[in-house]
């Protein structure tokens, strides 16, 4: 998940909030629109995978000036 930092204004989020309000969901407060990126890794060791993905986020997937990221690892289905 890559999302704009809280300090960065998100005009898309504002428009989505307004649209949800007009659809009858007044309970919606702030909306933030981010990105969902899914990666298939060939790496058996979770610690190595975690370290490598973290590096990928910092080097390419996320721009630290404007965005924050978080990720989770899930084991792939094992081959039959």
């Amino acid at each position, binding site marked *: 998940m890559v999302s*704009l930092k809280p*300090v*960065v*204004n998100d*005009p*898309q989020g504002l*428009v989505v909030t307004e649209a949800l309000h007009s659809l009858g969901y007044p309970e919606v407060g702030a909306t933030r629109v981010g990105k969902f990126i899914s990666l298939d890794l060939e790496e058996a060791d979770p610690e190595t995978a975690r370290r490598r993905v973290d590096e990928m986020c910092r080097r*390419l*997937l996320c*721009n630290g*000036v*404007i965005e924050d990221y978080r990720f989770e690892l899930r084991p792939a289905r094992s081959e039959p």
Partner: protein
Amino acid sequence: MRFGIVVFPGTWSDRDCAHAVQLAGAEPVPLWHADRDLKGSDVVVLPGGFAYGDYLRTGAIARFAPVMEAVREHARSGGLVWGICNGFQILCEAGLLPGALLRNSSLQFRCQPTWLRVETTATPFLADCTPGQTLRVPISHGEGRFFADAPTLAQLNDQGRVALRYSEKDGRLSPDANPNGSLQNIAGILNEGGNVLGMMPHPERACEELLGSTDGLQLFNSVIRRLAARAG
């Protein structure tokens, strides 16, 4: 005088830049994103467009192109690097300039003439201008909202590194004159040495009367005069 003009897959303002360079009396040198040297360029221009489709973020992939290592080295040794529109976005992603360019606050692609107030002339790019002068130069972008955190903004201001701000014709800053929601109406910034300029507006599209303004030529002429003086 050689202006290297970098073409990434998806760049589209390179021919306009080459045309402007010729109008100003210098020689455009086409550079390909896979090139590893700058072919004797005195100035490197990263023109507008959508390099690598602007996938992921504007400029995010382009910053890793082979040519960027040579551009980085050119900048490090004091050479002039000029990022226009997408080029500005690439320079920010590459860390050659601080901050980032975000989706316009209107969420619209804006293609329109703007007035730019010259904030400093302490750079070869604006040496022929006078501080406070306004220039008529068009913008053409969907993601030009300049953002930097508060300490970085303060530093840019303190060090006189804000080059251009969107303004009214008379130089007044106003929210109406700001076409994209940039912080403090910022349209262009410099690196610490003043040899790297990033700007969202397109000076190369304001070099002929037919197009409504020749103010953009002042920047090309400034660069050429300064470089000629430097070459002695």
